[in-house]
């Protein structure tokens, strides 16, 4: 007994869709270039066939292939119907007769024309033909263009076989009923399998195995588009005979198919280039169930994710023969599970035009094998220059070997980066088939190391052996120039050095010797600088001790550093002597240890008595890292890096006698060195903040303007408040030349840029560098730069710095491949004081240069094809929302552009599928306006689910945004919101729409402002819901518009607007 529709195949009967069809219709509804799913087949015919025979055969072909005759409708739910077979007259056919010389061009032109026009899948047909003949009878071809939703890769065989039979008069329309029956049977069999409990269970188990796979982002960069127009390009590699032979042997030795081998190698390439260790490679698996379906054209394929786990230390043989073979077998054993099921279970976003679940494909291509005497001479499938995936690898048998083609989306992957991908693929495959005992990491090689040596071009000429000598040399030429200036106080170079010498004498008298660590806790800028140089003159190392730090922390630092003496104020540390920062004056010229102390002239290098000009081998400072995890580590910074930094900075920031550098940074932050020392080496003036609080931006703006400061160096988080305070005060800074920032990722927007447009003489400099080196890279922006990238690169390394981007495989990364930044050359510190273990872990031998050391930053960066470095985050700060990697700063930048927003910070809270984005705003912006702006500019998964106002953004001690504190606050606020009152709607329209959604989603009630996606709306039921909206309210809401803000309230807005437009 049969209860389904198998026998009822009358025209117009509602047919179920395959899961793959549903998935494709969803994507098709999104793309603005609907023709990207048009597929072409070019069939070269025996030119002696009469035209009537050909046209009749095509008519029969469509009649006996019901798949071609499908049209698609959304109500009452998504389904297909068959249209009647065409007649000769109604067959969509375009005929072209061309002179023999132009035949090939005519074929291409017609293919491009047929392939370039979108189909209307609602009215059909979803196919069209072209027929090209050379007028001299030398050639003829039929071109079939059909939408992918009616045919898969396997469909080529049945279509060609049928066409051949029809041309021979062996196929007639008598088969129509049988084929329709077979077609419906296959649809039913597929749907039965997809909904079977065993399949549902298998899907759930499979989804669990995929949950922890990170998104694959090839060629990551901050301005990577969220959607593309699918413009594709290809690079290819035809394997040599030797490559093919080795490949065959490897497959045989490991008992794997070429598909498994290609998947294994491709997976490793993707992992390297995406900077991950697990990737999902999409691949089409045939989902045909009934024997009869092998005669049919239809979209019966199931594209499934093969999970490739890459352990770089495994052997290639294990990787291919065990891991990847197992993964492929898993897919084959679960081929009944559909892509849609996995996407739904993993709650992957489907609201953009990117493919969910995987962004890279591998397809084994079929090739036509002709038979002698056939009227069909050749069949090929012309491409249409589109890329439906970020990256697609096609493997096509060619003359007993393989042709590998990489098709890439040009908006996502630059040609140079695509070349790098093909290079990796070629090297890895060749290595895999030559030696299976090497590790997976060793499938790859170092990219050119010349890239690592590239710098910004500013020189770093060091004229002295020590910092003290340098400043003394400078002072000799201008002893009475102002070195330090603060309210009510100041020091000339002569005063600074003589005071420092006097204090140094005192320190030496107290037993300070070269290489000792001396605490520095002076209060004013004059005292601080004096003490700093006094310590340096002793050949000792200064350790800044910030009195605002907790006593325990100070004690830990002093103990760890074995610091017995502090210059400045008494910190109350046990076992530590305090010496006032004030030089022991007035005193007799000959009384103290340092005879040069009161000479009145800055002393030359190697001053008299116990006060030398510093010690080149001694480290000038010891600074503790803020210690985001675990205990802070004391970084001992040597003279070599600091002399180089000083020399480079003087040139790079144009420093000289006119320089007036604001001293803003806390002394325990290495930026303070850059404010003070290069300025003094250059003969400029260090200007103190005076009593101004670091966060009092109006006062700061005034101080900078009043003191005619030329250089400032702020934490990134202070830039926006500074610019806003300047704007509020209508302050102008005619003297300001450089605004330097560092500390976290710099995001800029028109408001920040406008400051530099108002100050065209002023350059914004983004600096990057960990405490374990110093500032090592920079990127400059001025008003003259027409476009400012929102996410500012960290730029190019400075003189003497080698910047290695080391990818997952341990090799130097090609352009576009993310990696851990390792810093070599002159910049690494000497290490962590009294901590040889941590030093050995962080500071490695420079294996790329073969000598010297490099510091491993743990910062993820990518170098572009121009050598510019971009910071991508640290391993633990990558945010994944609904299957996509999200950069929080990008959301902030958009929110900052809304009127009334003074500062915006987005944080991610929750874990796994419950992870959501929360936006904090400082200012008085209208939340609805902010939401609208975000929805217009960003994909829906990037629009925060909640927005909260706050008074000010919390910052850490070094002025960085305190994201952890905000995340905690978000969690608290979310819990409060969830526990409040009943649902209220603005009007009847909202109420109606909410009721409709409740019915579609089978839920109790929906809040008007809450995303419907959270209630279970997805692309498939959205089609049905919007079709019902059209029935009830008479307006067709575009799916894409709905997904911009998928809430009842926004939908009501769209309906109202569309009604108004209709009314006009």
């Amino acid at each position, binding site marked *: *007994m*049969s209860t*389904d529709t*198998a026998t009822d195949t009358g025209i117009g009967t509602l047919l179920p869709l395959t899961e793959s069809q549903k998935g494709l219709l969803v994507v098709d509804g999104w793309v603005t270039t609907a023709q990207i799913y048009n597929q072409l087949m070019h069939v070269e015919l025996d030119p002696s066939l009469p035209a009537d025979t050909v046209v009749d055969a095509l008519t029969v072909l469509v009649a006996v292939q019901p798949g071609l005759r499908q049209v698609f409708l959304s109500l009452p739910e998504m389904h297909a119907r068959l249209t009647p077979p065409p007649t000769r007259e109604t067959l969509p056919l375009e005929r072209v007769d061309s002179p023999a010389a132009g035949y090939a061009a005519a074929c291409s032109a017609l293919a491009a024309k047929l392939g370039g026009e979108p189909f209307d899948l609602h009215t059909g047909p979803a196919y069209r033909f072209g027929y090209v003949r050379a007028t001299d009878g030398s050639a003829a071809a039929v071109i079939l263009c059909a939408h992918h939703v009616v045919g898969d890769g396997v469909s080529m065989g049945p279509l060609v076989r049928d066409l051949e039979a029809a041309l021979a008069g062996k196929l007639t329309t008598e088969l129509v009923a049988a084929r329709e029956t*077979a077609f419906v*049977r296959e649809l*039913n*069999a597929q749907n039965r399998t997809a909904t079977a409990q065993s399949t549902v269970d298998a899907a759930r188990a499979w989804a669990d195995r995929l949950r922890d796979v990170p998104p694959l982002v090839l060629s990551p960069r901050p301005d990577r588009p969220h959607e593309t127009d699918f413009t594709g390009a290809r690079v290819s590699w035809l394997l040599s005979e030797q490559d093919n032979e080795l490949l065959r042997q490897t*497959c*045989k030795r490991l*008992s*794997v*198919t070429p*598909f498994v081998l290609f998947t294994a190698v491709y997976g490793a390439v993707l992992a390297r280039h995406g900077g991950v260790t697990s990737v999902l490679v999409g691949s089409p*698996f*045939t*989902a*045909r*169930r*009934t*024997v*009869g379906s*092998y*005669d049919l054209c239809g979209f019966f394929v199931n594209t499934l994710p093969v999970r490739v786990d890459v352990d770089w230390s495994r052997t290639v043989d294990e990787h291919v023969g065990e891991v990847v073979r197992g993964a492929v*077998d898993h897919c*084959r*054993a*679960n*081929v*009944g599970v559909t892509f849609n099921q996995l996407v739904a279970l993993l709650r992957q976003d489907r609201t953009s035009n990117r493919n969910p679940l995987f962004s890279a494909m591998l397809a084994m291509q079929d090739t036509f094998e002709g038979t002698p005497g056939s009227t069909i001479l050749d069949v090929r499938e012309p491409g249409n220059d589109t890329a439906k995936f970020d990256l697609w690898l096609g493997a096509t048998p060619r003359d007993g070997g393989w042709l590998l083609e990489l098709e890439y989306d040009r908006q996502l992957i630059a040609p140079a980066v695509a070349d790098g991908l093909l290079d990796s693929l070629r090297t890895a495959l060749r290595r895999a088939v030559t030696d299976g005992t090497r590790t997976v990491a060793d499938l790859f090689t170092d990219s050119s190391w010349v890239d690592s040596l590239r710098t910004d071009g500013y020189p770093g000429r060091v004229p002295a052996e020590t910092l003290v000598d340098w400043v003394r040399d400078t002072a000799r030429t201008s002893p009475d120039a102002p070195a330090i200036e603060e309210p009510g106080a100041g020091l000339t170079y002569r005063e600074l050095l003589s005071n420092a010498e006097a204090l140094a004498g005192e320190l030496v008298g107290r037993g300070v010797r070269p290489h000792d660590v001396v605490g520095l806790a002076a209060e004013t800028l004059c005292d601080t600088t004096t003490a700093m140089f006094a310590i340096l003159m002793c050949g000792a190392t200064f350790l800044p001790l910030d009195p605002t730090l907790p006593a325990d922390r100070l004690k830990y630092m002093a103990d760890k550093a074995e610091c017995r003496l502090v210059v400045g104020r008494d910190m109350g540390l046990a076992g530590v002597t305090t010496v006032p920062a004030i030089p022991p004056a007035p005193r007799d010229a000959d009384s103290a240890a340092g005879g040069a102390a009161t000479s009145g002239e800055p002393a030359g290098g190697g001053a008299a008595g116990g006060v030398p000009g510093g010690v080149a081998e001694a480290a000038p400072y010891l600074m503790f890292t803020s210690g985001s995890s675990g205990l802070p580590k004391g970084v001992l910074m040597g003279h070599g890096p600091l002399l180089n930094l000083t020399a480079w900075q003087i040139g790079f920031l144009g420093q000289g006698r006119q320089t007036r550098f604001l001293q803003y940074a806390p002394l325990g932050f290495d930026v303070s060195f850059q404010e003070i020392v290069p300025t003094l080496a250059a003969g400029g003036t260090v200007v103190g903040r005076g009593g101004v609080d670091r966060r009092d931006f109006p006062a700061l703006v005034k101080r900078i303007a009043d003191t005619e400061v030329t250089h400032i160096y702020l934490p990134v988080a202070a830039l926006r408040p500074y610019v806003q305070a300047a704007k509020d005060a209508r302050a102008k800074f005619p003297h300001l030349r450089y605004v330097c920032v560092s500390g976290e990722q710099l995001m800029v927007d028109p408001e920040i840029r406008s400051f530099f447009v108002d100050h065209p003489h002023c350059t914004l400099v983004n600096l990057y560098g960990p405490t374990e080196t110093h500032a090592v890279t920079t990127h400059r922006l001025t008003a003259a730069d027409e476009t400012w990238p929102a996410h500012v690169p960290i730029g190019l390394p400075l003189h003497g710095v080698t910047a290695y981007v080391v990818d997952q495989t341990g090799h130097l990364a090609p352009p576009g491949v993310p990696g851990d930044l390792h810093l070599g050359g002159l910049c690494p510190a000497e290490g962590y004081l009294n901590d040889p273990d941590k030093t050995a872990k962080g500071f490695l031998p420079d294996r790329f240069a073969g000598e010297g050391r490099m510091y491993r930053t743990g910062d993820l960066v990518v170098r572009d094809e121009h050598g510019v470095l971009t910071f991508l985050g640290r391993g633990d700060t990558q945010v994944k929302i609904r299957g996509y990697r999200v950069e929080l700063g990008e959301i902030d930048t958009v929110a900052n552009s809304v009127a009334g927003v003074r500062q915006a910070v987005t944080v991610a809270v929750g874990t796994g599928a419950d992870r959501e984005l929360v936006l904090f705003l400082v200012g008085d912006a209208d939340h609805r306006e902010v939401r609208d702006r975000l929805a217009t500019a960003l994909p829906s998964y990037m629009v925060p689910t909640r927005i909260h106002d706050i008074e000010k953004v919390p910052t850490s001690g070094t002025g960085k945004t305190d994201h952890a504190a905000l995340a905690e606050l978000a969690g608290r606020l979310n819990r409060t919101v969830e526990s409040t009152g009943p649902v209220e709607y603005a009007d009847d329209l909202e109420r109606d729409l909410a009721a409709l959604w409740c019915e579609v989603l089978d839920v109790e009630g929906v809040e008007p402002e809450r995303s419907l996606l959270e209630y279970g709306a997805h692309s498939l039921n959205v089609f049905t819901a919007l079709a019902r909206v059209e029935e009830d309210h008479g307006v067709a809401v575009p799916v894409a518009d709905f997904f911009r803000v998928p809430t009842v309230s926004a939908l009501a807005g769209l309906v109202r607007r569309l009604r108004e437009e209709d009314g006009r």
Partner: protein
Amino acid sequence: MTTAPVDLDAAIAKHATAAYDDSTPLLDAGLESLSLLRLAVEVAGDDDTEIDATRMVDLRTIGDLKAWLAEMAGQPVADA
């Protein structure tokens, strides 16, 4: 209900690219998943027969393949 063509060896020989016996691994005989499907289609007696492709993953040798094909050839018409 139909009965299958009995000569499985002849059917397999058309697709195999190397000599084989029952213990030969499928890949050594030159049989990949697509040829297995084609074989199944040829061997199955009736258009309505369903091929459970999930079972193909367990086929390692020609012997496994023959058992699978025989089962399919004798399988009753699917209640579509």
